[in-house]
């Protein structure tokens, strides 16, 4: 099956600094792909390139068979930024309904998305009055409501309590089972094991593109945290 996202020799500069160095990778359709790496490794930049808001220096990003950012992709790709991008001076429901309207969905779809992220009871509250974790979920709901084919989530589980994290991951897998492709970034290694496919990024370079099982086998450890550190260390020795 064709990759949902194909990145080839992607180079991104931010000012004089090169933040992505010839990154090539692919994202399988209908799976949860984790993009893991420490803060500042270029995860958000790579995700921004996939949704087509990042100015790129060279290389190509193909999404669902089209160049990233193409107009016809905008109804098919959902994006949740790292810091919650919702309107604090609207209620949770009003936010969800606005993004539903932009995607051509109705109010019922907005309410369903809020239930999916566990915000059904807080629907009438102003987003500005919510906790950080709730705001993040409101932001997520505003992407889910469009029912996109590709869902790009930048650190969606930061600041969430463990129970909620488990629920959200279950929801991500349910979406994948229904055919949605998900790309989820995280700097928390214990989330790596929940992904079907893993992309490890460090200092703007792709260290590994494998399944968790392959990574464990290659590095000879069951601990994914250790497994991630091992290619990092190997690179350190090589350099």
């Amino acid at each position, binding site marked *: 099956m064709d990759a949902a996202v194909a990145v080839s020799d992607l180079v991104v500069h931010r000012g004089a600094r090169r933040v992505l160095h010839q990154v090539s990778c692919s994202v399988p359709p209908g799976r949860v792909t984790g993009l893991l790496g420490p803060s500042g490794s270029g995860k958000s930049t790579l995700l921004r390139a996939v949704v087509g*808001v990042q100015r790129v220096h060279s290389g190509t990003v193909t999404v669902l068979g089209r160049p990233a950012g193409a107009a016809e992709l*905008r109804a098919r790709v959902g994006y949740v930024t790292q810091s919650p991008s*919702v309107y604090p001076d609207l209620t949770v429901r009003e936010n969800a309904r606005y993004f539903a309207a932009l995607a051509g969905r109705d109010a019922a779809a907005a309410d369903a998305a809020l239930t999916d992220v566990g915000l059904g009871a807080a629907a009438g509250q102003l987003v500005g009055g919510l906790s950080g974790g709730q705001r993040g979920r409101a932001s997520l709901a505003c992407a889910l409501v469009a029912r996109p084919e590709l869902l790009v989530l930048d650190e969606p589980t930061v600041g969430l309590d463990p129970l909620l994290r488990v629920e959200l991951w279950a929801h991500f897998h349910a979406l994948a089972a229904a055919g949605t492709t998900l790309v989820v970034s995280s700097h928390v290694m214990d989330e790596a094991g929940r992904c079907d496919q893993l992309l490890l990024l460090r200092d703007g370079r792709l260290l590994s593109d494998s399944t968790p099982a392959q990574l464990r086998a290659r590095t000879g450890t069951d601990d994914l945290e250790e497994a991630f550190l091992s290619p990092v260390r190997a690179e350190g020795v090589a350099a």
Partner: protein
Amino acid sequence: MTTALSPRLTSATAGRVLRQLRHDHRTVAMLLVLPSALLGLLYLLWADVPTPPGQPGTFDRVGLTMLGVFPFVVMFLVTSIAMLRERTSGTLERLLTTPLSRLDLLLGYGTAFGLAAALQALVTVTVATTAYDLDVAGPLALVVLIAVVDAVLGVALGLLASAFARSEFQAVQFMPVVVLPQFFLCGLLVPRDQLAGWLQAVSDVLPLTYAVEALQEVGASSEATGTMWVDVGVVAGAALLALGLAAATLRRRTS
């Protein structure tokens, strides 16, 4: 974001902006009450100053002009801050990844604040003509119309200015830059035919000049004049031009 317009997405955006406004009670109260209060201050200022016979009272002249200046200034400020918030909060970047087009977004803002300005103008015109005896020869509906077109001009310039502001501090300071020269040269402080030639030429290309002239036409004639309609057309055209330029400054891809 595409460039194709969608009335459905434009109205969804206008509705969203109005809902944000509705949650901000103090801003709504200030929008509706402040122009009337300030106009009242102007009324009191000239209340005891004698008017030379055969000339319109100073308050009639100044007050009428201010009916066009208030919505322009207020909507410029409100919009430039609102758009800057969209940029800094990440919601703009998010909107850029949805089917909403850039013009849909800008027209949504224009529609929402234009409606708010219509309400503001209704209140101000009613208070001015009843409580302050402001003398307007023409139909008051035309005064409201000019105020709304003025407000849309303020919205369009505010959207454009926000593209050049990186912070709220900068955005607020664009207000005097954009508003004051237009106010100085619009013919209120010094009649335009008494201005130096080059200042007159500058005044000729500033849209607020035409808004003020339109109001003066309504103030002096009992019916809409051709000059007034041309003036309204110029202000509306300037607003559309500014909206187009604002759309061009909205970059989808940033570094």
